[in-house]
């Protein structure tokens, strides 16, 4: 019984995340010094030559240079703006299928320091190399398999079976750890985080303890693979002996009828119950088999007794969990890149409020469309010099809300140290993002909609600091134009005074001409086909319309088109 309880603890430590803070390895002091230096650098270009980087310090976490700075990261709740920005959908699809890694807290934790962002950018860039990403992925698969095997070993009651599952678990662990170490030791990783992890892993694998473990597993597996036995079933019993080169009878039958073969036939094998557990007849057979090969099974039993509960290493377990943060996002990006959209590493600044992006797009909408092979419309934006506020007006259903979401999403994603949807991006490391999107009327709210709008706007403005970003979407729609203009101008005035970065979607285009801080953006329609939505939002006033098309042209049957089409 004692043996059976111990692995349970092993499993729990494998799934727990105790490794952070368990600083078994020296070097924390040195890295703390570097951290202060880093925080002093307020601005940082995302890319820097590796030579300029400090030498790898002792490995702590693949997500944080200094995990103590983000104590709430494990359990952080969803930021308020995620719902309005549809980032809750994005986070759900990012983490779907990865529940066991419990990543949501990390996706809810904005980094507060540009160097912390750089730390992640470096790692993400390393993971862009397809070789590393696929290694890490297969490492993760193996670790998941290992956990399953351990649970299995723990659940079974027959000792000869437990021993086998345990051996498989250790084998899987040793294999994937050694493989990853081998790969990382070849160099090629440039990020501080990956270099530190590589150094740790290489030491770990080189340790005598690990080497011995691995050798034992190997020999046992090789020996067990040589076991080949026969069971002769007759009457009410059976006989077990070693395999003596008896011929394959199914093959003989197949051979006799081979001449009739017409392509592939259906599989008529019955699906026989294959429980992981054995019945007592199978147990008896296995017992006989162990008596036929007593030396091999003796060693297996010994291995089980001595190694049960001694592995795996806590830091490796935590790495396995946290690195999923990057893989999840990279996979998500790839779905959109497949339909021709681009992501980029933003230049992030905590001071400079000029922002820009080319071909930016709504990551939540893009993911939905990409699932059916569709490609979302992308837009450009820029705030430079004194410009702070994008005032978005124009026809309805023209992509205004999507545009405002895009702006907010990109900033949130940038603060997570991730690539953002768009090219040539430069973004602001904000303190808080406040969003005010028109919501479904809440009947339990007696204040009335206009009042509600004002209360919420007031709350936002009282909490906002110059490092905040505000996104307003169609507020004050429940009053007269005159009222709405008046209120909007008042609010706009406060926003300007606070020097906030802001996106304001409105039907009042006058707001776009309130001063040097505002920039007018307009949703557009296709001039040739006014019914068609383009979802393009551009920096200018609306354009005219025109429409013309003939019936032959419609079907591509003009001489030139027909010549192109026929016999293509």
């Amino acid at each position, binding site marked *: 019984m004692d043996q059976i309880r111990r692995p349970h603890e092993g499993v729990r430590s494998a799934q727990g995340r105790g490794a952070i803070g368990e600083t078994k390895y020296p070097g924390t002091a040195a890295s703390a010094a570097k951290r202060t230096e880093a925080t002093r650098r307020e601005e940082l270009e995302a890319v820097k030559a590796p030579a300029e980087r400090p030498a790898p310090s002792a490995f702590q976490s693949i997500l944080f240079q200094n995990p103590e700075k983000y104590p709430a990261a494990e359990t952080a709740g969803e930021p308020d703006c995620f719902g309005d920005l549809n980032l809750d959908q994005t986070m759900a699809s990012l983490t779907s299928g990865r529940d066991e890694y419990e990543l949501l807290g990390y996706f809810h934790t904005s980094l507060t320091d540009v160097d912390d962002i750089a730390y992640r950018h470096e790692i993400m860039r390393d993971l862009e190399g397809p070789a590393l990403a696929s290694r890490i992925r297969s490492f993760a698969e193996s670790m998941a398999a290992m956990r399953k095997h351990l649970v299995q070993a723990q659940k079974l009651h027959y000792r000869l079976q437990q*021993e*086998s*599952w345990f051996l*498989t678990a250790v084998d899987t662990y040793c294999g994937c750890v050694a493989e990853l170490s081998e790969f990382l030791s070849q160099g090629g990783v440039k990020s501080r985080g990956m270099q530190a992890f590589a150094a740790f892993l290489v030491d770990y694998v080189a340790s005598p303890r690990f080497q011995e473990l691995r050798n034992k597993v190997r020999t046992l597996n090789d020996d*067990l*693979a040589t076991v*080949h036995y*026969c*069971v*002769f*079933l*007759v*009457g*009410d*019993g*059976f*006989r*077990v*002996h*070693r395999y003596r080169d*008896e*011929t*394959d*009878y*199914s093959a*003989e*039958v*197949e051979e*006799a*009828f081979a*001449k*009739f073969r*017409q*392509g592939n*036939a*259906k599989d*008529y*094998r*019955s699906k*026989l119950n*294959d429980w*992981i557990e054995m*019945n*007592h*007849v199978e147990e008896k*057979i*296995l017992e*006989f*088999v162990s*008596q*036929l090969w007593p030396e091999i099974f003796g060693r297996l039993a010994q291995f089980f007794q001595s190694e049960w509960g001694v592995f795996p290493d806590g830091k490796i377990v935590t790495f396995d969990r946290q690195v999923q943060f990057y893989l999840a996002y990279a996979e998500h990006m790839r779905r959109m890149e497949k339909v021709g959209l681009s992501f980029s590493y933003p230049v992030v600044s905590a001071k400079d409020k000029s922002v820009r992006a080319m071909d930016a797009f709504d990551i939540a909408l893009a993911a939905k469309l990409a699932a059916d092979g569709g490609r979302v419309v992308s837009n450009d934006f820029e705030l430079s010099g004194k410009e702070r506020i994008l005032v978005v007006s124009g026809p309805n259903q023209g992509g205004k809300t999507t545009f405002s979401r895009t702006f907010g999403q990109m900033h949130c994603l940038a603060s997570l140290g991730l690539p953002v949807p768009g090219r040539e991006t430069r973004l602001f490391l904000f303190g808080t993002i406040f969003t005010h999107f028109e919501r479904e009327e809440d009947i339990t709210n007696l204040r009335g909609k206009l009042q509600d709008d004002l209360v919420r706007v007031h709350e936002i403005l009282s909490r906002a600091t110059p490092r905040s970003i505000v996104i307003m979407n169609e507020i004050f729609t429940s009053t007269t134009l005159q009222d709405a203009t008046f209120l909007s101008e008042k609010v706009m005035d406060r926003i300007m005074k606070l020097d906030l970065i802001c996106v304001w979607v409105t039907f009042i285009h006058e707001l776009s001409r309130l001063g040097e801080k505002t920039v007018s953006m307009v949703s557009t329609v296709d001039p040739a086909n006014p019914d068609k939505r383009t979802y393009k939002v551009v920096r200018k006033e609306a354009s005219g319309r025109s429409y013309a098309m003939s*019936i*032959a042209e419609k*079907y591509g*049957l003009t*001489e030139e088109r*027909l*010549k192109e089409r*026929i*016999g293509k």
Partner: protein
Amino acid sequence: MKAYLLYPDRDFDLGAELPVNADDLVQDLELDMLFGAMAGEDKFLFEAARVALLTGMANPADTIRYRQDALRDCIANPGAVRELYQAVLATITGRRSRDGLLYLGNYPSAILHRSVDLVEAQMEGLKTIRGLAEANRDRFRSRAFSTLFSMLMAELDGEYMQTVARHLAQLKFREGILVSAHLGPGNKGRDYVLRNAREEKTGWLEKLSRFLGPKEEEYTFHLHPRDEAGARALSELRDRGINLAANALAQSAEHILSFLTMMRAELAFYVGCLNLHDRLQGKGEPVAFPEPLPASERSHHFKGLYDVCLSLSMDKRVVGNDVDADGKVLTIVTGANSGGKSTFMRSFGLAQMMMQAGMFAPAMSFSANLCRAVYTHYKREEDNSMTSGKFDEELSRMSRLADLVTGSSLVLFNESFASTNDREGSEIARMIVDVLREKRIKMIFVTHLYAFAHAYVGVGDDIMFLRAEREEDGTRTFKLIEAEPLRTSYGQDLYKAVFREGVRETQSA
């Protein structure tokens, strides 16, 4: 083993993908009537005829000749072919085999039992089929049939039949079952293989010799008589061994069945051809084996070509046409209403398809270049569900065709683009036909659009004009002559014919 009666090197696939415009072809050329004549009431024959004709456009000339030769054999020995077909059918649908591999159940022992029974029945049927091959082999000359008959005789000889019988007996496993295994995950048995148990010693004599001979290490276990779970476990293990043998035998039965089914489908095509041959011969219509010309040519010439579907639907013989259109890309057919223009075009489309399927043609002689596809653009009754107008609908169908046609297609236009006024329709028709002609796509265009038809007079040697003829007194011969379009379409005549009494009344009034 392959029957290979339709292709020298591959099976006839009843599930083959049909041309995307198959439904249009069936409707426009009234192919169902042809399939019906080949099938009688038999759905299977119908299906074989349908697939063979609709997939025939892909056949190269040597496949066509391969079938023509086989069909000549069939016409010479109709009784033998029908008898062979019946024997195959009986083997597939006989009492012991009609359920085939359905209802096998989930237990390996049940699957094995059923498969043994089925294979035994199939072997009996194959013996009969082999007998027919032996009896008829000297009377068939085509490559298709002589290869099949020799193969049946060589592969299913007496020795082979004995081997099969021996296996069928051994598969009852009266002596016990031997399985081998390796250790898999969790030390469970894995890679179970059924082994030949010849060496296992079970009788008392063997036990004695084992006791006396060199000792081999082995362990034996007997269940307690009341251990029901143990008995179940043991039978599960037995199933693991039988499972593989049952699978091997069931698959063999399936292979035999698909061999028979293939032979049935391929024979069905020839039986269908025989049925059609009987009917046409019965009313004295001529048939001829056509001569396919290379696909690069734009030629056809024939004598006495008649519409096989029209002929099948009436008691009298129908009027045939003679045309010599070698080197012609475009044939424009004009002339009297109800003068046989559409019938002529259909007769040509049908003959082309029958030729490419390897059949005889409904003509005294027929020859045409091979086409990789036939497309039809016929005027259609307006569809209620459509929001667009008639002309819009015509052009949208043309647009779909534009994506499909290639240089070696045949396109049949029947009164196309006439759902607008003569001028506009002619303009569009010319624009389209000009492009197709430039690409050397073979066309037959039945039209009333005078401006369109007339525009091609004297334009080139690759254009032929046919006209529905009428005698001086206005009666139609239903024969086409080579002649340029006339301005009127004899609508007056038709009116008079239909409203004869009305006209007279008007005159007398």
